[in-house]
């Protein structure tokens, strides 16, 4: 991770290079999109940035080929990938359902789902009863604060409106 690490393990930062290729693609798509813009004020800046991004990405790939450096990303070993995916999926699904079932129901659902994914202790009888109750209290409480006090028009859903 440090530059002054004098004994780098052999190997290349393949992941970093793959991401650099992805960034080149992102920049290329951006460049293509700038051709649909009517005003020079709109495209000068993004074009310059996209070109710079391609240049830096190519430089990174070349640099890695010339002087191999270790993968400096954060490791994922010894951790549960299904739980990670579950967390993100639960949040996305709840957001997608929000306009239809309303904020409270999707909020309760996402809370319950994440609670399941984050639970490593055994479900004792106390936890089975208390955790969901506190969770429901938090969701409804925040809903009340946002909707009534801060006047945020949270989605109410098709069922109740």
């Amino acid at each position, binding site marked *: 991770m440090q530059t002054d690490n004098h004994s780098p393990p052999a190997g290349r930062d393949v992941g970093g290079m793959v991401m650099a290729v992805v960034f080149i693609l992102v920049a290329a798509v951006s460049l293509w999109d700038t051709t649909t813009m009517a*005003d020079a004020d709109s495209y000068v800046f993004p074009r310059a940035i996209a070109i710079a991004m391609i240049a830096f990405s190519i430089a990174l790939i070349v640099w890695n080929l010339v002087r191999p450096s270790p993968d400096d990303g954060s490791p994922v070993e010894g951790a549960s990938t299904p739980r990670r995916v579950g967390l993100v999926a639960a949040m996305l699904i709840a957001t997608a359902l929000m306009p239809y079932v309303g904020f409270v129901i999707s909020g309760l659902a996402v809370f319950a789902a994440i609670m399941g994914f984050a639970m490593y202790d055994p479900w004792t009888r106390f936890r089975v009863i208390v955790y969901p109750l506190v969770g429901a209290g938090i969701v409804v409480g925040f809903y009340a604060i946002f909707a*009534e006090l801060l*006047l*945020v028009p949270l989605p109410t859903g098709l069922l109740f409106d």
Partner: protein
Amino acid sequence: MKTKQLAMIALATLIPIGSAVADYPSKPINYIIPFGPGGESDITARHQQPFFKEKFGQDMVISYKPGGGGAVGWSQLNSAKGDGYTIMGINLPHIIVKPMQKDVGFKTEDITGVYMFHYTPDALVVRDDSEFKTVQDVIDYAKANPGKLTLSGSGKGTANHLAQIRFDDMAGIKTTYVAFKGTGKAVAALLGNQVKAQWGYTSVGAKHEGKVRLLAVAMEERHRKFPDVPTFKELGFDLVSGAYRGIAVPKSTPKEVRVQLSKMIGEINADPEFRKRMENDGMALLDVDYAGYQAFMDDKIGIYGKAARDAGVVK
């Protein structure tokens, strides 16, 4: 609060549609501003707020849905419930120019305006110590130095920008328009001597009294707050324009409710105290009701469509 609302919803479902107008409004109205708080759209809505409560006994609850220069709010207007309890601010030339550029999720004709209640007229603004004393000075300078006269203004494809395009065309001059994000920053650029003049609004003159001068205003008649400032019309330029603001409802709103709402906004507009407050802020009142909305829009679509094409903001 919660139970009260539930009771109201229950009540509302029991009452048949026919009598909906008679007791409208029977609960608070949600007034959505498709911009952030603190802008002029917000301030005018805040001016209306107490008068609505006073006259009709219900709260007008203002909320914000900023994004995409208003487009995010307007593209979602028609999916809201059309019961008269969701209304949204609309702004010209935005709702005309934006859909002409690209698909922004709504078309000008998708928007059901019920009342255009005011406009902030465009004005040619200079610093108080500026060498320009009249509009003619500006024209003379621009003729002697084509393209070198820099004018700040709020954004592109906006009232300021289209006024600049139209005025350059009428006066036969070429000036450079420098777009800033919002009127506040355009004024700062003028006061800080970054540009020579500004295409601003009459409200700029009201807010920055003593530091700026208005050379002319784009109104039919002189503004009551600035009796010494000529209109462009007096000077021979047919320029009456500005940022127009109104109120729209979702398409599904019944006609009776639209008419009723239009009448109510008109009533607020007629209040002498409301007029005084608006005019003190440099705004000009306008009374285009539901019946007159379409004719008004047709006229503006013609004018702004051409100016936007001339300005190059529409391909």
